[in-house]
């Protein structure tokens, strides 16, 4: 039996005609806002927030010049991450992740932010220095007019010798070898980077104002230094890093499901993990939005008695 004013199966389509209670919506929102404000101020005073200094090309080349030069040579001979990336940065046949089968949205959209790695990261910045350094002008001329096979021979020899390099200040000494103009070019690039010149060169453009850091960030991301710092801060993809932030802070906990897929097969070993996981999450998101329309899913709440807990006062009276 249900008490009058407490119908046990009210029609959710029609306005409620049963008993009412006083309810102050505005007071509720105002108090809620004040409560959040206090909680927020409390947490901010106790826990603060992280703000780790950014890495600069200058700090990278000082802290790990070997990694810096390895990355720079890979840009010069088109073997770096960016050079071999494919869309949206570079034209590389067959590159780009597949969503399913051979279908790649990345390839369909194509190259929209073109980056010529050797020019952007090495040659153009060196040409700035060369304007006041005739010897470097000659060296650059020699490299640029050489055949591709000579260029590759030099860069390969340089890359092979780098593990034996000795660094002192901003100078680098390699064992004797056939590096051609690549030796002096890389020494000049290291000196430019150490002095902060490369930071400037990578963000400057033909416009005065700057708001785009694509080139500088791609260069940093191609190196191993940024990644090693991230690893020590538990930020790598394989460390659930997408939902973490620097230090011991909650980070983006709401990315748990997205991050989860990267930890498990087949995604953890797939070359197309990003495309596949984004595709999967798009499906999940659509299903989440559409729960009220999906038979089965929309009936789960009836089967789980959480609602009896939420409306327990109401049921107690109605079922009396």
């Amino acid at each position: 039996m249900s008490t009058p004013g407490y119908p046990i199966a009210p029609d959710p389509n029609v306005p409620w005609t049963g008993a009412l209670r006083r309810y102050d919506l505005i007071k509720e929102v105002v108090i809620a806002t004040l409560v959040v404000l206090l909680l927020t101020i409390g947490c901010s005073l106790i826990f603060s927030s992280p703000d780790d200094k950014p890495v600069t090309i200058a700090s990278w080349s000082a802290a790990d010049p070997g990694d810096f030069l390895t990355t720079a040579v890979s840009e010069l001979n088109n073997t770096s991450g960016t050079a071999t990336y494919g869309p949206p940065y570079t034209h590389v046949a067959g590159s780009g992740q597949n969503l399913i089968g051979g279908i790649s949205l990345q390839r369909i959209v194509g190259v929209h932010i073109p980056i010529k790695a050797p020019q952007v990261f090495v040659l153009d910045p060196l040409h700035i220095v060369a304007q006041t350094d005739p010897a470097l002008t000659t060296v650059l001329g020699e490299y640029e007019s050489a055949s591709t096979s000579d260029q590759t021979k030099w860069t390969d020899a340089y890359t092979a010798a780098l593990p034996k390099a000795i660094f002192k200040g901003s100078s680098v000494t390699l064992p004797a070898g056939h590096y051609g103009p690549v030796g002096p070019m890389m020494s000049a690039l290291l000196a430019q980077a150490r002095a902060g010149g490369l930071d400037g060169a990578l963000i400057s453009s033909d416009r005065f104002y700057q708001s785009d850091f694509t080139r500088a960030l791609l260069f940093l991301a191609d190196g191993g230094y940024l990644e090693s710092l991230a690893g020590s801060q538990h930020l790598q993809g394989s460390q659930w890093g997408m939902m973490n932030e620097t230090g011991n802070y909650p980070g983006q906990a709401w990315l748990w499901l997205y991050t989860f897929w990267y930890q498990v097969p087949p995604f953890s070993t797939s070359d197309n993990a990003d495309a596949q996981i984004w595709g999967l999450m798009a499906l999940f998101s659509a299903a989440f939005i559409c729960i009220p329309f999906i038979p089965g899913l929309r009936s789960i709440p009836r089967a789980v008695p959480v609602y009896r807990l939420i409306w327990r006062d109401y049921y107690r009276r109605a079922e009396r």
Partner: protein
Amino acid sequence: MSSGAERPTWTSHLRRQVASMPPEKLLPDTQPVYVASWIYVFGALTIGAFIVVLLSGAVIAMAGPSWWHHSSFGHFINSTHLWSTEFFFAFMVIHLWGKFFMAAWRGRRRLTWVTGAVAFLISIPIAFTGYLSQQNFDSQWIGGQAKDGINATGAGAFFNVLNFGQMLLWHAVLLPLFVGLLIAGHVILVRRRGVVPPLPGKGGA
């Protein structure tokens, strides 16, 4: 309905919509008896957190994006922006699960669920672009990693996570505006339809 001769106009349509929401319905001071549970507070707490997020973000915006890196007061305001965001998500998720277990989409309330769910999904890129706009190590690393995910969808060609200016504007203008409008629509829908009654009890249909 208007009579045959006078055909409805867009203007009259809007007038009817507005008229269907008189102040007593928009801001009632009574609620059905079943609106009596702590779970109902979480919608209001989510609004509260959204307001604190907007206010702390506004203070940072007034001083510009680099300010908080070299001012201790700025750093404190940044902390409040971070923590209010964490509360916003926490309260929203509790609210969401509550509404799920109440099957609160019953009785022509499906659009309320849909607007809420879309607001949740769009809040994720707000937080994400916020991390990208910090101008610190975290931004550098997140940008470098996230580009691969977004590029894999093809969207990276237009939504460049390494373009600071673009990310800051999405973070501080476009996405909050969108979520703000969704929240407004969401709350108006709740008032318009009234709070969903309880599921039929034991032995009910």
